[in-house]
């Protein structure tokens, strides 16, 4: 039974990895995939409903929505992946150091992360983005500021749990120095949960980045970004609902893929939790 389950999870993981990789490929080759120029305006074609020539319709400036969504995947997906990459590496290193070092350094560092956690996430991100003054880069920085403590806490907890296990004492007796202990022994053992958290975070961050852009705190006009495209389409909701449906659907599909990937990854790495969360 268990073996069957595991094979099933493996297959699921494989399919989802291909889907996620497909999204990434779309983002990488966005330039070649667009049927039209995503920035070319043509007022004669403004607000066309979906048709054979414009599969998802056009927006109020006559730009092809499908092309804009494809190009938008670059700003949305790339910036989120970059964000998660940097934040998870930084947060994890910081957390391991805290857990390993202990003592005063640890307690000061944890108080600092407490402070960041005391702000409701998006509120703080909005303020940071507001202070820095909008733009996609600044929105990413704002989201980074709110998301690092999660990784730091996770890595710290895991490190603390590993620190006193016998295998580490054995490694130490075998003559490993601090760095070897951390990188060769602790890191591989705590990487699983960090990886799962990071994958699940991709979906959340995609939505929050789009949210900031929706509020005009992220990508600036005319840059194609899913959130800001929806914000532009908002006033046309009555006459041209497809302007928000396209980008909204794109966000939804990407979030679904990454969330499923995260869930499946967790099942795969930690079969005990299967079907529980």
């Amino acid at each position, binding site marked *: 039974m268990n073996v069957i389950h595991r094979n099933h999870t493996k297959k699921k993981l494989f399919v989802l990895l291909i889907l996620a990789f497909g999204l990434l490929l779309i983002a990488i080759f966005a330039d070649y995939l667009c049927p039209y120029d995503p920035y070319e305006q043509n007022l004669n074609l403004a607000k066309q409903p979906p048709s054979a020539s414009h599969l998802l319709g056009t927006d109020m400036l006559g730009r092809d929505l499908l092309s804009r969504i494809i190009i938008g995947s670059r700003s949305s997906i790339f910036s989120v992946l970059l964000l998660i990459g940097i934040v998870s590496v930084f947060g994890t290193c910081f957390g391991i150091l805290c857990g390993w070092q202990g003592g005063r350094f640890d307690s000061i560092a944890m108080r600092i992360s407490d402070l960041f956690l005391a702000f*409701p996430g998006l509120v703080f991100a909005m303020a940071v983005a507001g202070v820095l003054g909008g733009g996609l880069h600044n929105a990413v920085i704002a989201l980074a500021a709110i998301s690092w403590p999660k990784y730091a806490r996770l890595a710290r907890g895991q490190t603390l749990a590993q620190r006193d296990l016998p295998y580490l004492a054995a490694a130490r007796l075998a003559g490993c120095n601090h760095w070897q202990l951390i990188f060769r022994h602790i890191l591989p053992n705590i990487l699983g949960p960090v990886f799962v958290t990071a994958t699940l975070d991709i979906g959340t961050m995609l939505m929050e980045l789009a949210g900031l852009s929706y509020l005009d705190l992220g990508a600036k006009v005319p840059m194609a970004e899913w959130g800001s495209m*929806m914000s532009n389409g908002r006033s046309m909701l009555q006459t041209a609902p497809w302007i928000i449906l396209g980008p*909204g659907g794109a966000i939804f599909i990407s979030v679904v893929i990454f969330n499923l990937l995260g869930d499946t990854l967790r099942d795969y790495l930690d079969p005990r939790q299967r079907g529980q969360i």
Partner: protein
Amino acid sequence: MKKYAVKRLIQLIPILLGITFLSYGMMRLAGSDAITQLYENIGIAVSPEIIEEAKAKLGLDQPFLTQYFVWLRNLLQGDMGTSFISGKDVFHTFVSKLPATVLLTCSSVITTIVIAIPLGILSAVHQNKTIDYLVRFFSFIGNALPNFFVALLLMYVFAIRMKLLPVISSNTDFCSIILPTVTLSISMASKYTRQVRTVVLEELGKDYVQGARARGVKESVILWRNVLRASILSIITLLALSIGSLLGGTAIVENIFMWDGVGKLAVDSIVMRDYPVIQAYVIWMAMIYVFVNFITDCIYRYLDPRVRLEGGGL
């Protein structure tokens, strides 16, 4: 209990100080020159002497820490400065808009509880049956929809197509709170249902449940008397934790439905770079969040005799 509450309140002081310090520092960094900003907004070119003089008058030539403490003293007296844009007192503007947001938050929390707790329990009890899959499916979908997308979809269907509910909220009638509340509850309930399900499942898997079953205690008695009583603590804690994302979510949703609360005020001021108002928003939201967590801790302690009797438990 009283002693514990006081102790926890004292522990909150450094956090609150940190919150104010961080907010103050951030806004100072941004609008490093409130005066220059102010004149820029009015649109007059002024000589550097006048700016220096105005700065000295407001104490802006003092060292950073001195300024911070002066600002903090004013804050404690309810003086959060005046808005760069409207010139009105920030504290009063803020307090006048707060009830609308609190109302929206409360209605969303209540809706979430009403939806998520029964569904979570139902889904845990019928694990891996059709109903469980259905609940999990919908909570998964709800989790993957950004709340502004939900808001726009609901608006399109119920306000524009079916014309059942108003597009723009007016804060006064019952109908206008429905769409914002539903929007916020959908994303919050989808997360929360999953969490409730996990908590209840975990409790159902414990040995004592099996023991009770073996002794022939009825399923319903086990569920209501034992399992739910034991899981209610985690359920409350998780709810308090999700208030944080709710507070952020209100900003977006208020903006879409033109709900006249602090979230809309904050977004408007961010767009116009009205730093005193942004500052007030961050501080207020953080304080609300911290106090919600404080109250949760107290409730937790009150409800769980184990934590209470251990004495420490901090």
